[in-house]
């Protein structure tokens, strides 16, 4: 183990370097850009053997990824916001063709109006496209989840995205521990594809079209494969914990055991919430945080179990669903629905387009929850 100081973007690039994938398609977009720049630097310095493909759009990023993965290569890439929206069409091909591509996503607001700062709307827009979604709070988690995610993708033949917050995580330097490169390589292992387009001795057609008599079965198989992450992710995380000492569950429960008021959130806001929980706990307030790490497939049962003992819960969404409940709130509500005893549940949307979230605002929510008050719909 080695201590280093890296931004979230560079931490993910470091994990990619250690994995040394066969093919990486590259296209710039703020705030993902430093990740791919760093990876291209590794290539220029001969630190990776990867074939880079500098394409002309994110649509082609994912198209190259699909082609290379179907050919049997290990493929990684990264994008943000408009980029993941542009490649939306190809994301479903990657999952439908069951290709274990890993993509780092740096969460950024989506147009219009143009805004390059952090929120999770565009990331939430692609949550139902058949990819595993893991959410990182810190550069450390971005590094760790990239390595765990790669192993998971190949175990279930399903693509994985690892998401971190734009600027707040991607551009801020933190201390982290990285594994020795050989240990990372051994952990992910050599990629042995089941099928490859390059085997002309056993020619196969990839991406055939299907009539109603077969399409539905294919989709059910795909759903089973994605859901199998609920079993395979803990295995990969446990093996990683042996190497690193760092444990990852579906969620992170932070002082929730006897908590009366709990906040549920994703990514960097969890760091702010933890600081508030610590200071309020010092004053004897029973508050806690539930941070979701795995959102797809959604671990409903575990979320329910974590929250059932609380009196009041507020879900903090850094995303908005127009005309519907905010995405994480909606998932949390579903997790609670079947429980006989459930907490009061509230929603609060914050941080759109990079609006800061302050400790005081989080404290106000906790104080309100403890007093039985409904939090504000929007934290502005």
């Amino acid at each position: 183990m080695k201590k280093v100081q890296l931004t979230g973007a560079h931490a993910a690039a470091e994990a990619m370097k250690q994995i040394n994938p066969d093919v990486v398609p590259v296209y710039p977009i703020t705030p993902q850009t430093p990740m791919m720049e760093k990876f291209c630097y590794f290539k220029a310095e001969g630190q990776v053997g990867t074939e880079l493909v500098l394409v002309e759009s994110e649509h082609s990023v994912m198209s190259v990824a699909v082609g290379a993965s179907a050919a049997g290569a290990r493929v990684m890439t990264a994008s943000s916001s408009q980029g993941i929206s542009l490649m939306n069409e190809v994301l479903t091909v990657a999952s439908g063709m069951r290709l274990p591509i890993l993509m780092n996503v740096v969460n950024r607001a989506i147009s219009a109006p143009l805004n390059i700062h952090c929120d999770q709307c565009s990331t939430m827009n692609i949550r139902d496209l058949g990819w595993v979604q893991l959410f990182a709070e810190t550069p450390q988690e971005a590094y760790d989840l990239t390595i765990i995610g790669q192993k998971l993708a190949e175990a279930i033949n399903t693509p994985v995205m690892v998401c971190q917050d734009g600027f707040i995580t991607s551009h801020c330097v933190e201390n982290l521990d990285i594994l020795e490169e050989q240990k990372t390589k051994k952990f992910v292992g050599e990629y042995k594809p089941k099928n490859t387009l390059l085997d002309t001795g056993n020619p196969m057609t990839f991406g055939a079209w299907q009539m109603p008599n077969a399409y539905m079965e294919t989709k059910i198989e795909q759903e089973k494969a994605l859901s199998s992450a609920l079993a395979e992710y803990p295995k990969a995380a446990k093996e990683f914990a042996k190497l690193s000492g760092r444990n990852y569950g579906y969620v992170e429960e932070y002082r929730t055991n006897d908590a009366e008021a709990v906040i549920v959130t994703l990514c960097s806001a969890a760091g702010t919430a933890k600081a508030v929980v610590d200071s309020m706990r010092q004053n004897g307030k029973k508050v806690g945080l539930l941070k979701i790490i795995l959102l797809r497939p959604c671990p409903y049962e575990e979320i329910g179990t974590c929250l059932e003992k609380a009196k009041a819960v507020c879900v903090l969404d850094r995303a908005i669903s127009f005309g519907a409940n905010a995405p994480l709130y909606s998932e949390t509500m579903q997790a609670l629905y079947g429980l006989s005893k459930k907490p009061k549940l509230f929603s609060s949307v914050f941080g759109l387009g990079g609006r800061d979230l302050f400790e005081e605002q989080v404290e106000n929510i906790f104080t309100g929850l403890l007093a039985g008050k409904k939090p504000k719909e929007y934290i502005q």
Partner: protein
Amino acid sequence: MAVNIKEFAEMESYFAPGHGSCSGCGFPMIVRTVMKAAGKNTVVCLATGCLEVTSTQYPRSSWKTPCVHSLFENSAATLSGVETAYRALKKRGFVKNNLNFVVFAGDGGTYDIGLQSLSGMLERRHKIVFVLYDNGAYMNTGNQRSSGTPYGANTTTTPVGSVLKGNMLSRKDIVRIAAAHNIPYVAQAAVHNWPDLFEKAKKAFAADGPAFLNVFSPCQLNWGIGTDFAIEISKLAVNTNFWPLFEIEKGSYKLNFRPANPLPITEFIKPQKRFRHLLEPGNKPIIDKMQEETSMEWEKLLRQCKDNI
């Protein structure tokens, strides 16, 4: 050395019968000719379109070589990924054979929605042969106009009415657009002249970088020509100079065929229902413009070919 017809007939095409293309369709002949030049060690990528839906309906496939289809507009990018993976995996010793890579796409998937992806592939110098089977409209969805549709053609989105008389825009010059990427080999061919297409395909696969072939591919259904007329209409396209056969090798233009007595454009128009309205007296200006553009393009090509005629 040109191939003789016996040898050619006996060559494996790696494209099995039983596909569902219409009788009298042009592209199966194009595919078989190109695949004979490509050989067994070839990976095929299809853009969404007639060829893709008629040859890859699950659980059957006409392809005896590996074949991949992703989407409509990204065949060049998809095969770029495959070809890059090939280089990466060859380096690791995972692949031993030398492989050829070929895209087959229609005019919609090339001139229109696929143009950006194609340009990227050409610019990055992937060793890929891109074959455009050009039937001049979105035939898989039922004959809608593309930017490869000829001037004057009746399509379902440029229908002939009392005011509008079909497609009023001229075709995009896709061959020269490809050539402008300074790739080693670009050629235009037509389905009836298989020795020419076969030689061009061989040159394309031997090229040191990307190659682009634009092949005239009759659609009997939407051109309204009958199932026995693909070869005849292809000959007429060439003999009227509507579809010259030429190649651009390392930037140098060469004319591959010069009709002894070029026919007027009306000889190409008359047998096709998509142009039938042009024969009405009031529409003569449209025919005149077609003739004028065809002659102008032909003269331009002759100037570009200079000594290679």
